[in-house]
């Protein structure tokens, strides 16, 4: 409420100074505008404009010379691969986020449980997957999953299990892609939940202990309700990122086998850039919008809460 302050300081001033006050006001908004101008430029030219431009692109034919209206969408709806991609993107995002949340919560809980002087070390180790650029770490997974040299299969062979074709058949390939995503994303949940756990007042646990609550009841009646906001924001945020994921699938499976691991982003890349069908690629990626919009609205509600508190 900086402006209120200024008006207040200006109040006792004499009439002659009002104009200079107005000038100050004007100057303030001018300065503020100049300060935000670069931000606005970035957002409008490189985010907002392309976003709307892709709507336009989506209505053109392949060579981008003719307006075809909703023809591209019609064409997409008629293709089996498209519906496969819709199904996979949803399956991928929902499954990965659920497991990331569960693993993140569990790990955060364990870290929170141990004496505080050791926490930093564990937290440091457990956050490593999130720090490595995903394109790099996925290469390690790719090598771990290699059909001929898989180090996992080597271990499995020693306990008498037949080699798994990690990226080879539909189910395992989906499993692998989701696994890597969980591996990359779970530490983020862990760190968020840990921060939230620390903000739960200790007295609540003490009180419940006296009331004879067991650990499960403590989690269910104290921890989870106290963390509800963080859990939902983190999950929604992660849902967006996971849903729009590109790196992991691109490096690990390239969408195969039989397109069974393609997501919107990877398929749009294949169709739009690699097959030179830019309008169709734009159409494909536009299908991310409804889901993103829902998630964004929900996040926005929480952000609104934050705004009121701040």
């Amino acid at each position: 409420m900086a402006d209120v302050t200024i008006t207040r300081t200006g109040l006792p001033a004499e009439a002659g100074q009002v104009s200079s006050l107005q000038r100050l006001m004007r100057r303030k908004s001018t300065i503020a505008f100049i300060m935000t101008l670069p931000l606005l430029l970035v957002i409008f030219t490189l985010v907002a404009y392309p976003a709307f431009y892709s709507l336009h692109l989506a209505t053109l034919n392949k060579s981008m010379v003719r307006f075809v209206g909703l023809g591209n969408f019609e064409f997409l709806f008629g293709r089996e691969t498209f519906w496969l991609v819709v199904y996979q993107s949803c399956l991928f995002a929902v499954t990965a986020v659920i497991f990331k949340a569960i693993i993140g919560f569990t790990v955060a809980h364990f870290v929170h449980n141990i004496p505080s002087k050791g926490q930093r070390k564990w937290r440091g180790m457990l956050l490593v997957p999130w720090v490595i650029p995903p394109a790099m770490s996925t290469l390690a997974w790719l090598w771990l999953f290699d059909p001929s040299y898989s180090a996992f299969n080597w271990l499995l062979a020693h306990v008498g299990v037949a080699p798994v074709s990690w990226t080879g058949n539909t189910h395992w390939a989906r499993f692998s892609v989701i696994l890597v995503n969980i591996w990359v994303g779970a530490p983020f949940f862990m760190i968020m939940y840990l921060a939230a756990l620390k903000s739960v007042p200790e007295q609540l646990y003490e009180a419940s202990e006296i009331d004879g609550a067991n650990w499960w009841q403590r989690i269910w009646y104290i921890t989870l309700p106290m963390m509800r906001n963080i859990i939902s924001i983190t999950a929604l945020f992660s849902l967006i990122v996971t849903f729009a994921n590109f790196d992991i699938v691109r490096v690990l499976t390239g969408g195969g086998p039989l397109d069974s691991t393609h997501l919107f982003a990877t398929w749009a890349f294949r169709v739009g850039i690699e097959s030179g069908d830019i309008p169709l690629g734009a159409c494909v990626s536009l299908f991310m919008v409804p889901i993103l919009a829902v998630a964004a609205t929900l996040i926005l509600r929480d952000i609104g809460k934050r705004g009121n508190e701040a």
Partner: protein
Amino acid sequence: MADTALATGAPTRALKYGSIAKDRRWALRLSYFFLTLFAIFFLMPPIYMFITSLKTSAEISAETNPWWVFNPTLANYIELLTQDTYLIFFRNSAMVSVIVVTISMLISVFAAFALARMRFWGSTLLATGVFLTYLIPETLLFIPLFKMMAMVRDATGIELMNNWWTMIILYPTLTVPFCTWIMIGYFASIPKELDEAALIDGATWIQTLTKIFIPVALPGIIAATIFAFTVSWAQFLYPLAFTTSTDQLVLPVGIITTLIKGDVFNWGQIMTGALLGAAPPLIIYAFLMDYYIAGLTAGATKG
């Protein structure tokens, strides 16, 4: 907010629950056990990268224990680090990241200050808009951007395709919104009395920002800087779609496109390249972990 994450000293609960010490000990052992399991899961790929990076191609092809190095060699490291192309990737990545971080921080600190303190018409709406922008993934934008580059070329003759510096134009879209958002949060937590006093004393807005806000919000600035750096260093889609020549590639794309050579594979080198590529963020993280975590949880602890 920084304090929450920076504070390592959570209350030691063992003392408080002295009466049920046995339970606690049991729970503690269980915690350590599971933490070890998770640590194995979380650290296995980077460790395996490291193991493989020390092997020769012959050892990788041999049917030996993949989890052990029998004849360790630094040949992969030496070969990569004396290879022009890899050093060019590294240089490109470093240049892009450093410049993008600088630009992002300049843009977002000023904008955040204006949005947090200099309330003006539409500023609240804009603040929300900034955050929403962050939620628009690059996977939605790369196709229109691809076409837009052709438009820019036709209109101005400036070739944006296949230039590493194009990344400097594009990456801020990924960093600026979130950095601004973090900084708005930090600035909002600074007591209003501070800047009010400064303004009454006749300080200009710029002075208020540089003399008061930036020093006080330094942890937040460091957090945002680290965030911007990691994002720029890791970005994969834009350079994959928009750069092609070997001398224009950044690390992630360079490693994946040049070290994996269709038919002939050299996994020792690929793993070395990936590990070295992951090194800068890992090193920064090792030294500034607390700021990093503060940045990550910036939105959360407020909520």
